[in-house]
C-alpha cells in the first residue's frame, strides 16, 4: 500500500471555525490531490499540486485553500467552515511515468462534520 496518511481521520467542528486537514506521503510522489466525496456526487477534485509551492484549483475549490511547502505534505484549509463542507475528504498521490499512464493512490479519508 502507498504510504499516505491523512489527519485527522475524524473531526467535528462548528460553523465559522478554521479547519486544516493534512495529507502526508512517504512515496516522494510529485503530484498530490484533495478530493471530497458526497453521496450522489462521486469524488470531486478540490485542489491539486504538481510540486512544492505549485498548486492549482480543481472543480470545487471555493472555500478551500491549500499549501505544499514540502514534497511530503499537502494541507487543505477551510478558512471558515460551513455546513456544506461536511464531507469525506480524500487525499491522493501520483507519480506520472513520462507522458504515459499513471494511477492515483488514495488515503483512507478524513470525515469532517460541520455543525
Amino acid at each position: 500500500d502507498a504510504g499516505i496518511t491523512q489527519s485527522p481521520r475524524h473531526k467535528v467542528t462548528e460553523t465559522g471555525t478554521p479547519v486544516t486537514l493534512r495529507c502526508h506521503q512517504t512515496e516522494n510522489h510529485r503530484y498530490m490531490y484533495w478530493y471530497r466525496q458526497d453521496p450522489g456526487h462521486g469524488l470531486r477534485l478540490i485542489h491539486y499540486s504538481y510540486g512544492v509551492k505549485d498548486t492549482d484549483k480543481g472543480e470545487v475549490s471555493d472555500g478551500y485553500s491549500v499549501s505544499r511547502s514540502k514534497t511530503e505534505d499537502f494541507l487543505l484549509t477551510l478558512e471558515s467552515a460551513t455546513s456544506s463542507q461536511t464531507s469525506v475528504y480524500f487525499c491522493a498521490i501520483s507519480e506520472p511515468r513520462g507522458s504515459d499512464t499513471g494511477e492515483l493512490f488514495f488515503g483512507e479519508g478524513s470525515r469532517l462534520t460541520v455543525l
Partner: protein
Amino acid sequence: LAKTTQPISMDSYEGQEVNITCSHNNIATNDYITWYQQFPSQGPRFIIQGYKTKVTNEVASLFIPADRKSSTLSLPRVSLSDTAVYYCLVGLPNKAAGNKLTFGGGTRVLVKP
C-alpha cells in the same frame, strides 16, 4: 472536461460475470481510461487502465471500442467481496490533465449469495 456516465447500481450473484459500461463521449486523444474500486470507509484503489482495445490483468478486463467513447469493465466470476462502488476515470494524472481528474458518480455493485 471528459464527463463520464455510468449506471448507478447493478446486482449480481456469486460466480457470475459483471460488466459495467462507462460512457465518455468527449474523451480526448491523449486520455487514458482507468477504473477504481472503493469499499465503504476506504479510499478508491486502482483496478485497471487502458487506452484502446482490450487490457486484462489478474482481477479484471477492460474493453475499449475503436471510437473510445465508452469502455466496459468486466469482472469475471464475482464473489461477495467484490461488492463495492466502481468508478471510471478519464484522463491522466499529469500536469496537463490535473483539473480534469474528477470522477463520476460510480456504479454500486452488489453481489448476492
